[in-house]
């Protein structure tokens, strides 16, 4: 549709330009051009007029004017003599030659332009202004945006609210605002103290900020996350990615292998992990099937190909996959993790921390309804006056969630 529109406008533009260029040719007969000498005569006459004016104004001495007049006069006479009986007039081209030229122009402009454009352009690629890509936001996004705005407003008033930063940070990550996410994680770390997920999140934000490159700074965050929780898979993933990016092949191999073994089969990073492993093994010469291209080091600005689009080798695809972690894949990853957690809590409901994590996850994902249901379920599991029950209630209050009320309050 967009495509059609483009070609219609392009065709209109082309025909307009071509016809304009042909216009002088299709007219019956152009007037014959003036001989040079006639133009020269005109210029000299203008000079004489100016001389007179200067003389009238008195800006020129009479003697000087006289000699100038004589000089211009001589040139004028010569030009006028030459002009007599001379003209460029009749030397016009004959019909066949003009016809050939018309055909040439008629063919050259549209054909050359179209062919050239076809090799360089991307007619089917629509404009993607940022505003249009953000709007109209889906129902969930709209809610999310409102939540973020509200949370930001509240945090401006109470910047020491660690939980607030903690809730906001992953949302920033999802909204591709890595700088904000990193700041939020730092605040959360400052206020709430270290935790694997906070360090991991900060590392991820820093990685996003470096366009997918696991920087040294990010790396140290992941390492801290693992110190606290050695089984924290996202941190393992990024450390393995780092090994691949820095081409430490044997290290990468170990790390990817560990990650794959520790991850559930449907984990969202599995594809990348497999590719990373294959790449590392290939570099080590352990396999003869270089099916997967290496992980690019640093997903900076991709290089432009000669055809006008970005070269999309498998290499670039991998990069895109990795960086899209922050978009659809991350969403899938988080949802997968949440679903697992929910399933586990069904079998083993006596886990206060687990419930808290689940409820917070739902809040983060903007699934307030699900969060409320989880809260209700947790409240049923623990007696209201038990330690667990009190903790759950306090937590719910903390993140502004209530099982009974219809709306989330601040």
């Amino acid at each position, binding site marked *: 549709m967009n495509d059609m529109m483009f070609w219609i406008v392009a065709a209109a533009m082309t025909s307009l330009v071509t016809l304009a260029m042909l216009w002088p040719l299709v007219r019956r007969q152009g007037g014959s051009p003036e001989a040079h000498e006639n133009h020269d005569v005109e210029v000299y*006459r203008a000079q004489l007029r100016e001389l007179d004016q200067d003389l009238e104004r008195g800006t020129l001495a009479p003697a000087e004017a006289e000699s100038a007049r004589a000089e211009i006069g001589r040139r004028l006479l010569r030009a006028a003599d030459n002009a007599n009986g001379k003209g460029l007039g009749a030397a016009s081209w004959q019909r066949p030659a003009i016809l050939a030229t018309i055909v040439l122009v008629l063919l050259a402009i549209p054909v050359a332009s179209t062919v050239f454009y076809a090799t360089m352009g991307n007619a089917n690629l629509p404009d993607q202004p940022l505003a249009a890509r953000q709007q109209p936001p889906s129902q969930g996004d709209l809610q999310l945006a409102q939540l973020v705005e509200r949370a930001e407003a509240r945090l401006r008033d109470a910047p020491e609210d660690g939980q607030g930063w903690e809730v906001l940070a992953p949302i920033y990550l999802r909204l591709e605002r890595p700088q904000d996410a990193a700041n939020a994680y730092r605040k959360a770390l400052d206020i709430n103290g270290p935790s694997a997920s906070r360090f991991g999140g900060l590392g991820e934000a820093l990685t996003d900020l470096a366009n997918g490159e696991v920087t040294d700074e990010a790396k140290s965050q992941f390492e801290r996350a693992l110190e606290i929780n050695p089984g924290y898979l996202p941190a393992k993933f990024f450390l393995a990615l780092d090994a691949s990016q820095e081409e430490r092949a044997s290290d990468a191999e170990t790390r990817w292998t560990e990650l794959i073994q520790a991850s559930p089969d449907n984990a969202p990073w599995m594809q990348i992990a497999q590719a990373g492993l294959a790449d590392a093994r290939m570099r080590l010469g352990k396999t003869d099937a270089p099916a997967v291209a290496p992980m690019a080091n640093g997903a900076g600005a991709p290089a432009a190909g000669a055809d006008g689009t970005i070269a999309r080798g498998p290499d670039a695809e991998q990069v895109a996959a990795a960086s899209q972690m922050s978009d659809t894949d991350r969403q899938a990853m988080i949802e997968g993790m949440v679903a697992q957690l929910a399933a586990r809590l069904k079998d083993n409901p006596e886990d206060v921390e687990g419930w808290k994590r689940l409820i917070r996850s739902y809040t983060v994902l903007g699934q307030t309804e699900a969060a409320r249901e989880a809260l209700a379920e947790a409240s049923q599991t623990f007696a209201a006056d038990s330690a667990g029950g009190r903790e759950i209630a306090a937590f719910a209050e903390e993140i502004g969630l209530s099982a009974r009320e219809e709306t989330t309050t601040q």
Partner: protein
Amino acid sequence: MIVELGHFALILALSVAIIQSTLPLVGARGGDQRLMEIGSIGATGGFVLLAVAFSALTAAYVTSDFSVLNVFENSHSAKPMLFKVTGVWGNHEGSMLLWVLILAFFGALVALFGRDLPATLKANVLAVQGWILTAFLLFILFTSNPFTRLDPAPMEGQDLNPILQDVGLAIHPPLLYLGYVGFSIAFSFAVAALIDGRIDAAWARWVRPWTLVAWVFLTLGIAMGSYWAYYELGWGGWWFWDPVENASFMPWLAGTALLHSALVMEKRSALKIWTILLAILTFSLSLLGTFLVRSGVLTSVHAFATDPARGVFILVILCLFIGGALALFAWRASELEGGGLFAPISREGALVFNNLFLTTAAATVLVGTLYPLLLEVLTGEKISVGAPFFDLTFGPLMVPLLLAVPFGPLLGWKRGDLLAAGQRLYFAAGVALAAMILGLAFTGGTRVLAAFGFALAFWLIAGSLTDLFVRASFFKAGWRKGWARLTGLPRSAFGTALAHFGLGITVLGVITVSSFETETVTTMRPGDTVEAGGYTLHFDGASRRAGPNYEEQVGTFTIRDGGVAVAETESAKRFYPARQMPTTEAGIWTTWFSQLYVSLGDPSADGQSIVVRIWWKPLVTLIWIGSVFMALGGTVSLADRRLRVGAPTRSRGQARDRVAAGA
């Protein structure tokens, strides 16, 4: 779709340019009016198409369409709207698109206003413009396409280099390009004359206003760039003899020479061959400038991201056009008719003197700019040629030239009277001498060079005013009549006087600031004071602030004059997180024509004090004010009716009668 239409328009413009560069030429050789007319239509159409392409790219920037690689690399959604728009030409691809747009713009102007030009001359000129356009469109499409797309599009751009996020950048490159590219018209006229093997009488009358337009823009562009570097880079310097600055200064020197020699050619039909050569050289220097900046052979503040393929491509274009034009010149120049004769002491002689010194000066700048490159290619030795070289070579060449300036307009055409001109300049000489004596007295006789510089500046200023007085013959004819004659003077006379006056003003600024500026580097704690230029600078304290896309540390200073606070100024160090880049925002306080310039360095380890660099820059603004006067002079000259060229009438007999009657 808009982006792709822009891309298509760019390619369509190439097809049109190819037709424009061939058919009119064929038409001019065969004398076919129809083919020649295609040139005008092509030039106009090409301009419209490029305007569409440029608008499309601008639209992509305004809407932050990151599916366009160029936008992704150089823009950011959080950037203020002004810088989104100026960002279009704040990068290599976009600035090249602006370059060809302006080229096409000048072509279209010739097509529209050139109705009265001899048809073959016009056709040839437009064809040559078509060649240049074709070459640069190919360059853009093959090495620097601004319409390259990204799919999928990233959500955020990489932001424009913060140092380029400045209002100065909004105006500087377009002005500079209008100047650079404007000289292409003079070049095309020169090549057209060589192709035709004859120089029409209209030639100089046409070339002069076009050169003047280009020169005015280039003057403003260079001044703007100098001021931008002065306040944005935070080093307090206004001219660095940086290769890229030289790249714009060389065409300016050659263009100034061309302006003067075209005058001789118009009035006296003399210096024809030289003027043609100068027209070729001026644009060649513009092309060389483009090459130096775009190819990455130079390292400079202004050089955008570089790519060897681009360098080679531009080098080929450069060789093709400069080599081709010079070869054509060598082949055809001898066929051109020589012109009028003149005595060495005459207006023409003075203008030859001007040309000699300006072109020699341009040549020394060229040597200083290219010598390090050549040496590196030949011997691998790396050297840098900096300000001392240019001060030593360019400076001495300017002195005789500036001394001669007031004489020129007072000398008669053909044969002048140096003594009479000298007598008329008694007043100016007196002013200059007074300035010198005052200068010596104030410095206790220690600054002889500075005093001489003052004399030179006032010699130029008084000399330019004398020129007007003499023309109006105030002294001979009395005030009332003199006034009437002054207002009746042709505008070009005012233009000349204004431009020479501006030159004097600029020289005054240059001399004063280079001789008497003071610089203090010191660490300051809040409450500390520093003396500069007779004022006391009090450091009030530093604070942190957040801007739209940066964070800054701001130092606030109070300026006191004899204990009384007269002004406050802020100097800042900014940090742009998107590019992880710091910049310095100097605090500048202007009083009359002088400035106090404060720039912040690093805070000390304990965070209590900060390094501050303070300059007192006496009369520094005169440097740019003078340039504005020069440009104004050019504009006034341009408004002179007499630069119009009339169309020939059919009644040839009349002309003869008129001459007979007049002579």
